[in-house]
């Protein structure tokens, strides 16, 4: 019984793997072309970034869904995979103030505090 369970294939079919492989290759080419277009001024920096990031997310979802068999196992594993994504996103979000608070000071020379005489009492 255990043997039968171990050798059973729960994942997608061969054709699905090949279609995903083709999609991943095409998406890699798209991100490369988007980067080229952005460098040569055909796309704005923001647009290029959005396309490249979206392509990376789609590729990761395809690998996870089909190659890692989450299309079958998601219902059994979501309860700890999903919180990991939330914590991962939160980790980056809580660090963002470092970037946002830095923007007003870009290129500015720090000025002394108001009322400072320049000498320590």
């Amino acid at each position, binding site marked *: 019984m255990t043997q039968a369970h171990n050798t059973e294939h729960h994942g997608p079919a061969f054709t699905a793997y090949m279609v995903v492989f083709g999609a991943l290759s095409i998406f890699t080419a798209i991100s490369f072309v988007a980067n080229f277009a952005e460098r040569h001024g055909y796309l704005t920096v923001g647009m290029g970034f959005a396309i490249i990031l979206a392509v990376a997310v789609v590729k990761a979802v395809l690998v996870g869904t089909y*190659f890692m068999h989450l299309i079958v196992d998601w219902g059994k594993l979501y309860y*700890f995979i999903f919180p990991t994504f939330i914590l991962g996103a939160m980790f980056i979000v809580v660090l963002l103030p470092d970037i946002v608070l830095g923007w007003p000071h870009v290129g500015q020379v720090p000025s002394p505090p108001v009322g400072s005489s320049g000498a320590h009492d």
Partner: protein
Amino acid sequence: MAHAVEDEPILHMGVAVSHGKLAVWIFLATEIMFFTGLIGTYIVLRNGTPTTQERWPTPEQVHLKEWIGAFNTFVLICSSVTVVLAHYVMAKGRVGQAVAYVGVTLALGCVFLAVKAVEYKSKYDHAILPGHVFDRVEGQRGIDYLNTIKHQLTHLAEQASGAVASESRELLALLELKDGRAQITPAQVGQRVNEMYEKNKEFFEEHSDMHLATVIPFGNLWASCYFAMTGFHALHVLGGLVVFVIMLIMAAIGRFGVQHTSMLELVGLYWHFVDIVWIFLFPLLYLV
């Protein structure tokens, strides 16, 4: 009473996946957090540090070629396909075919690491290493920069020809003291060197033995991020390759069979995760 007990549904504790798969997914969850830490820190440094005067290094400045990154992405995607096919055919009892797919996966992983080694060699040749990049040329670092550039320009003046040689001699003359005083500051030298490199980029790409240390703002920070992220990723690739080698050894001594289908699936899960990490590292480091 006995009849009533028989009618009760059989309850199992835990989740409806094998212990092995659950363990691997828990391990992958910790790995997601690990790489999120690295990538998150990079995003903050990448977007929070540069100023309007001093921008984050471009791939050209740090000798990073986008097509090499894209090639490595394709190699890892191919290896993901071969490892998933190895599991697919193993589940159908075709052990020989599964071993062949594992062998191809191992070869593709080796190609990935070989390309990475070539990239690292390029960084080493151009001194794009943490702490070695001239991102600031003030104080003692400026004196170090002048000494380095004087040595490189002397080599170029002797070995190169044409415009590079004449420009090197011209810049060397400016580096000489005049009445005991410097004619040019390290920052001005850096600017001249950057212009000279930009003008003769093709020459320096063709002659890998001739170097010119350009000034790259935030170059050390970039190098630290690059080596931390790609280094840890390469270590994960290496870990996967070790497991593939063990599988091939088991196959060679006749101890690898359909009973290892689950093992192949679990190793595949790890390998696909390594692929996903690269899917994000490639655009972050090479493209965006």
